[in-house]
């Protein structure tokens, strides 16, 4: 039997969790000021105007449906970016205060990780460090499907605009996106800056480490602690369903569907169905994890083929090379050079 770690509470697409007055309200605001009819926008999403007023909690799948409608009906390409600019500080109550009163960016980043479900339940970030840079590898927490790029546009913009507010200047983030250079590149440049890579093997944000210690303008220990205390009262989930599956695989990389299903206390069939609801299969997640690990070893840590193959439990290097090529489209040496 493999090493079992208890699964912490996780969020599924169909569980009510997202406060309607936050992200959903901002999306509706942006779309309606651009001339979209509110009823048309909400049609089929199961969201009602009253939900926003009463602050009802929405299912993630409802918010995804709203995003899809906003995208089709809003003219222009800046909808997501405008939403991103509005998220912080207005949308997050106590957490906004906690972030505002942090000492420096490094600390704010730790809070972001800790309260990620309240701030950005759609994205899971894994942090790696090398001597110079900090890397945040981003993964889909809930199965966002076609809305994934829209969501990345929202939250990357929110990160840049929040850092500007907290620090008084823009942090020069580097963004590596897996998708091709979009036609509306001007929105990316205007909202995220010019350090942009497209068609990259890994979705990640990089930042030079010197920025972690830059002091924030409004730092205050007492106000921060109080706000964190308040925010903790609202904390329910630790991560999204797909994150939970990935973490289970990190703890026991060789486990199969049956074993992971047992860990989640469901039958393999139910577990499979649940994965499918979140747009994934077990094999896909398994491959993705291996892919991420290979990129980390080769590209970030710069290990050679033998070391990497050994860490990933490959018997020989040619097999490892073939697998890397299959996962990333690049050979190990190309990947080291990216």
């Amino acid at each position, binding site marked *: 039997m493999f090493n079992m770690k208890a699964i912490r509470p996780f969020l599924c697409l169909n569980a009510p969790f997202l406060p309607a007055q936050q992200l959903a309200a901002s999306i509706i*605001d*942006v779309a309606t*000021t*651009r*001339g979209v009819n509110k009823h048309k926008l909400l049609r089929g999403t199961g969201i009602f105007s009253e939900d926003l007023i009463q602050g009802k909690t929405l299912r993630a799948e409802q918010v995804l449906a709203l995003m899809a409608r906003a995208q089709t009906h809003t*003219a*222009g390409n*800046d909808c997501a*970016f*405008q939403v991103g*600019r*509005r998220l912080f500080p207005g949308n997050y109550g106590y957490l906004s205060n906690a972030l505002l009163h942090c000492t420096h960016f490094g600390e704010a980043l730790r809070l972001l990780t800790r309260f990620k479900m309240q701030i950005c339940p759609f994205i899971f970030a894994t942090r790696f460090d090398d001597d110079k840079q900090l890397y945040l590898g981003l993964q889909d927490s809930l199965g966002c499907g076609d809305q994934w790029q829209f969501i990345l546009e929202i939250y990357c913009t929110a990160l840049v*605009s929040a850092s*500007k*507010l907290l620090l*008084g*200047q823009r942090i020069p983030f580097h963004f590596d996106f897996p998708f091709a250079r979009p*036609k*509306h590149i*001007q*929105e990316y*440049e*205007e*909202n995220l800056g*010019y350090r942009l890579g497209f068609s990259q093997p890994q979705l990640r944000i990089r930042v030079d480490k010197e920025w972690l210690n830059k002091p924030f303008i409004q730092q205050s220990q007492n106000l921060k602690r109080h706000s964190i205390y308040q925010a903790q009262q609202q904390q329910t989930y630790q991560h999204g369903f797909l994150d939970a599956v990935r973490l289970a695989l990190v703890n026991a990389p060789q486990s199969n569907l049956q074993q992971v299903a047992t860990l989640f206390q469901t039958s393999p069939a139910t577990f499979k169905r649940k994965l499918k609801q979140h747009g994934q299969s077990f094999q896909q997640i398994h491959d993705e994890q291996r892919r991420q690990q290979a990129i980390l070893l080769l590209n970030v840590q710069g290990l050679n083929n033998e070391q990497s193959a050994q860490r990933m439990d490959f018997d020989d290097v040619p097999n490892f090379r073939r697998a890397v090529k299959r996962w990333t489209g690049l050979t190990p040496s190309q990947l080291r050079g990216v």
Partner: protein
Amino acid sequence: MNYSLAFRHHHLISVVMALILLACSLSFGLGVLKTSAEISWLDVIGEGSISLFTLMWIAFLLLSRPPGKVTTALIWGLALMMFSALLDVFDEFVHHAAEVDWLSMIESIPATFGITILSYGLYQWHLEQLALNKQLQRRESLARDHSQIDVITQLYTADYMRNRIAQQLLDNDHHDFSVVMLDIDDFDSFNRQHGHQEGDRILKDVANVILMNIRANDLACRYAGDRFILLLPQTSQNTANDIAQHIRHSLQHLAFKAPASNQPIYQSLTYAADEFRPGDQIDSLIQRINRRLDQRKSLIVNV
């Protein structure tokens, strides 16, 4: 769909309705219904579709045009043509006694009048379009694509500007153009203080200030966020800088008022201009100017 314009055409709507009713009462009031065996359905479909389509065109016109001389002429023309077409269709359903034979003799006369009025209307529409093109000068150049109009500022978007610059690059005799980027200073903090709705309003005002300060052949578009882009044909970098400076001055004197407040809010902007250099492509040119603009902006922040 937006129906607000349709409600301003009571007069024309009643004309169309009256003509439909008149056609009905003339045909069915004065004639005797045919039996279904006598009706030629092929003719009904052919002639019926003409009246149906004319009615549809009338509806589109009423929905999309404000009242005025041109609209009146177009609607009257089409309505008369529809009237003749209706008489034609209804003819398939009824027999006329000999004493009302005149009806089938005159049924094509309204169409003749209609076509004449419609032609007059179309000519007026042509004149109107020329006048409107002039109105759109500085917002539009050489091509029209309504899907590329930005909803907030009513300027064209970056995509449109890219196409226009591409056009300039293709034309080897006209490489003496300049491009300017303008960016409102501290727009984020304005948005935070006054709300995004006011932010949108100020973008609209800035767009107008820009339009007022550029020349007839120049083109202004919204690039992204609070950034605007100008295309100045046959213009050197120095002149482009001057024009950008004029816009800056003008904007500094624009007293923007937030709702329920008499306190003016003044905005400033930062710009960067450069002329075409041999070997430039669209992206390299835009990127060079963008970077220069960001450099200037970072200087302002650090001061």
